[in-house]
């Protein structure tokens, strides 16, 4: 980039000015970041924010990445996104299939690998029936790949033992939305950030896990008077920029949320006519069946949850709770964000319901700036798993396995014989690996995820995965990882821009990722692998005709068209999102019923006034707001009476501390990709345990001392980082580091409704090592 400093600064001033008033100024050639043949529009590989970016290619290699300034992220990307080019040719990329023989890895060809896999799966199905095989998908594979796997296992094989790793991150949010609004997926979008006056962030460290969204909020904080409330037991960077911080004992946030509802009701801050028109009240009856109640009973239910009780239980001062409730209710538009802090809990669904309740109670919903927004962890957890239905209790696009009518619809759509889809929901992630450990599941195929490091109570499941008599196949781009080291067969997978497909991020925006370079070595895209496996397995099972009929696809576009058709008469309806439009646009938000429906699609759902095309279709007589996803309750949303309950494993005498795990900005989940980038390793080189200075002083621990952390399931030694981030009594450990498997200590108790394990709260003991 040969231009002097003065020139660069003048151009920066011009460009910034232009962007403010929407002038079209293109960068002159010499100011391009680096000399690049061409820039190709794509999406970041990492978190659920789904930042659009341009990939710079030069001579068949990816050399640079820059933010897509026409997408929602307006050209911003975070530091790990900026280093994406470095993960593609990282040292231990898996280049060819390998099989484990006597503890050593032997290289084999793709045919041998496929034949071995097909024979193993076919033999298991013939001998023990279809329920003896399983599939563990990922919120990072592309939507088409997950749809294929779902169709193969639920449709062709007729087993529901297929689950995705969003069971560990988004299941509670999904069930929360379904119980509150009838259908899954948030109804707002990032566009609401520009209208919201009050942000209520709970159980989410946005500055680390969703940095670019957080940047947009901070931009609003600079430009207009906005109030930011953050409820988090750790004083993260998110908290340090907030106006009000609710600091509480982890697990006790149900008390706080109920207390906020209590204040809103007592001070008459609720929106009575909204409640009358659009809300019903329910509680779980004695026989665990939902029971309709009226508003008065809800008020009586809230009586008990006074701010004083909340303070006594959660340790959060009552003035702050009252202040938060008032700001939440009286602001012109309140937008709430939450993430794993609420989802990864044994009461995940309930606490999701409580946040939705606050929005329904105060009418802060279905208008610009007012919406409950659940942040997604993985880039395709929404588009590829929750929408495509790759969870053991789901069928594509809002259909449930347990619902006969839905099963009939899918069997008819896929052209399957009656009754092929099994009526009972299958095993969820934790149960799937429990059964695999017990040997009931004979063959398991893990694609694009790392359960060997991310499952809770890890030791038990790692032993299970290492069993000799079961067959574990892992499709992964890197080897060895903490899962592929336990596998019997590893298949090299194409990575990110080495294959094409679509991602669906948190705000229902589907975006297309083109293939930019050839896969490394013999790596193949999961689409190809699943397709060939499906055809070979069905022919091996003697159903060659079904193989041809069910899997006729040649490219991912064929699958995409089938998916569009499948979503046509559902609430997800994105029939208008043809592949061509997705390639042209910077992502589109469904529902997009027709092909000429303007980009970027529907920013807000359930409100006709603010542009949801399906309200008129599903609820003609509604004049503006209609929760058409919940016809059973008359297109009304549900406020649930959820009693406040503590965590499964609270701190006690011999385990006085609470361990919470989480992410850093530098690394992505189990670090198979980001730990190959030296710059990111420099910024976050090793695992540590964050300890509050007061606790550290009591235990005589200084930064850098080795500390032993013990829970009921195991113990681990980590360097201490004494810093005023976690509240007294809480310690934090990032789960990225393969050499320090913190998930061994984490409890695998899970939410009875969503089956999501409680990563966030485990009781531990700390002593100097």
């Amino acid at each position: 980039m040969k231009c002097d400093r003065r020139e660069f600064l003048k151009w920066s001033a011009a460009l910034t000015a232009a962007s403010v008033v929407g002038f079209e100024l293109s960068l002159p050639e010499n100011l391009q970041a680096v000399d690049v043949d061409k820039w190709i529009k794509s999406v970041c590989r990492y978190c659920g924010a789904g930042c659009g970016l341009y990939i710079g290619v030069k001579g068949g290699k990816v050399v640079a990445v820059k933010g897509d300034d026409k997408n929602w992220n307006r050209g911003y990307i975070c530091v790990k996104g900026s280093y994406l080019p470095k993960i593609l040719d990282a040292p231990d990329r898996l280049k060819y299939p390998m099989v484990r023989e006597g503890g050593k890895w032997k290289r084999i060809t793709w045919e041998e690998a496929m034949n071995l896999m097909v024979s193993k799966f076919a033999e298991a199905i013939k001998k023990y029936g279809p329920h003896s095989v399983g599939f563990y998908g990922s919120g990072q594979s592309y939507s088409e790949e997950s749809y294929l796997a779902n169709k193969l296992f639920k449709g062709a094989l007729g087993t529901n033992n297929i689950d995705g790793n969003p069971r560990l991150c988004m299941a509670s949010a999904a069930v929360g939305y379904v119980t509150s609004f009838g259908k899954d997926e948030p109804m707002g979008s990032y566009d609401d950030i520009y209208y919201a006056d009050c942000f209520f962030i709970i159980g989410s460290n946005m500055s680390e896990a969703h940095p670019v969204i957080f940047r947009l909020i901070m931009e609003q904080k600079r430009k207009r008077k906005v109030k930011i409330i953050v409820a988090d037991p750790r004083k993260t960077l998110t908290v340090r920029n907030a106006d009000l911080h609710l600091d509480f004992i982890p697990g006790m946030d149900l008390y706080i949320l109920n207390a906020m509802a209590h204040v809103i009701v007592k001070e008459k801050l609720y929106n009575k006519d909204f409640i009358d028109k659009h809300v019903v009240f329910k509680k779980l009856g004695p026989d665990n069946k939902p029971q309709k109640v009226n508003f008065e009973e809800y008020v009586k239910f809230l009586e008990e949850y006074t701010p004083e009780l909340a303070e006594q239980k959660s340790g959060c001062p009552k003035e702050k709770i009252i202040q938060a409730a008032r700001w939440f209710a009286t602001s012109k538009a309140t937008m709430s964000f939450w993430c794993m802090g609420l989802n990864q809990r044994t009461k995940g669904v309930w606490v999701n319901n409580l946040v939705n309740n606050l929005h329904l109670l105060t009418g802060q919903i279905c208008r610009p700036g007012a919406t409950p927004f659940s942040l997604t962890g993985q880039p395709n957890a929404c588009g590829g798993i929750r929408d495509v239905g790759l969870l053991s209790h789901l069928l594509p696009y809002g259909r449930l396995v347990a619902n006969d009518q839905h099963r009939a619809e899918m069997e008819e759509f896929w052209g399957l014989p009656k009754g092929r889809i099994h009526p009972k929901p299958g095993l969820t992630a934790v149960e799937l690996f429990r059964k695999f450990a017990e040997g009931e599941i004979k063959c398991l195929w893990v694609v694009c995820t790392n359960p060997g490091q991310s499952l809770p109570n890890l030791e038990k499941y790692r032993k299970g995965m290492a069993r000799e008599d079961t067959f574990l196949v892992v499709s992964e781009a890197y080897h060895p990882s903490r899962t592929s080291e336990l596998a019997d067969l590893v298949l090299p997978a194409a990575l990110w821009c080495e294959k094409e497909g679509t991602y669906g991020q948190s705000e229902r925006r589907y975006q297309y990722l083109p293939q930019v370079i050839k896969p490394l070595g013999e790596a193949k895209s999961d689409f190809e692998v699943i397709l060939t496996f499906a055809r070979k397995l069905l022919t091996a099972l003697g159903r060659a005709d079904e193989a041809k009929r069910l899997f006729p696809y040649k490219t991912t576009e064929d699958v995409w068209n089938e998916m569009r058709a499948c979503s046509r008469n559902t609430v997800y309806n994105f029939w208008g999102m043809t592949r061509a439009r997705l390639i042209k646009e910077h992502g589109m938000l469904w529902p997009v019923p027709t092909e000429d429906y303007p980009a970027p699609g529907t920013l807000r759902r359930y409100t006709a006034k603010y542009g949801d095309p399906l309200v008129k279709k599903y609820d003609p007589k509604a004049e503006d707001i209609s929760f058409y996803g919940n016809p059973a309750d008359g297109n009304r949303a549900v406020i649930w009476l959820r009693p406040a309950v503590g965590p499964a494993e609270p701190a006690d005498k011999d385990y006085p501390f609470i361990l919470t795990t989480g992410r850093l900005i530098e690394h992505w989940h189990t670090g198979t990709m980001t730990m190959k980038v030296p710059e990111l390793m420099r910024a976050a080189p090793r695992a540590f345990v964050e300890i509050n200075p007061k606790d550290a002083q009591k235990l005589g621990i200084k930064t850098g001392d080795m500390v032993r952390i013990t829970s009921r399931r195991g113990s681990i030694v980590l360097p201490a980082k004494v810093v005023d981030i976690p509240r007294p009594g809480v310690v934090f450990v990032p789960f990225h580091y393969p050499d320090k498997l913190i998930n061994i200590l984490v409890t695998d108790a899970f939410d009875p409704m969503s089956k999501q394990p409680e990563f966030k709260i485990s009781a531990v003991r700390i002593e100097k090592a």
Partner: protein
Amino acid sequence: MFKTKFLRPPGAVKESEFVKKCIRCGKCQQICPYNSIVLTSWENPFYFGLPYIIARKKPCYLCMKCPPVCPSGALDRTLVDKNKVKMGIARINRDTCWAYQGSFCRACFMNCPIFDKALKMTDELLPVVIEKYCVGCGICENVCPVEPSAIIVEPLKD
């Protein structure tokens, strides 16, 4: 052509005085648990044997073990509180720092031992060094993902 600006161990007296007072006995280097201290040789033969810290390779983690063992008063023997250390001041190069270039990175903020005092994040999520509290330990320079580091600790000039 010889290096003249050295980042001295914590508690060091003024540079001109340090050169005269330090008897180059290597005790601070030996006690340092992180091997952060190296002795000068080719960099500048006039400073042969004087201890200094290359923050980019190994910063000073302020464990405060070296001042007590210094026999000659080159390091202030009584210094214990890491907040009172003054080794240098960090300077951010806005042209290469990710945060100032539109990406979002906060490695220096999260690893600063004087947490949220010596280095703060502004509303625009840009790192800013507060010179009054920055002790100049070099941890930020060590963790900065950019090569060469976008935040450099400049040793104290007399």
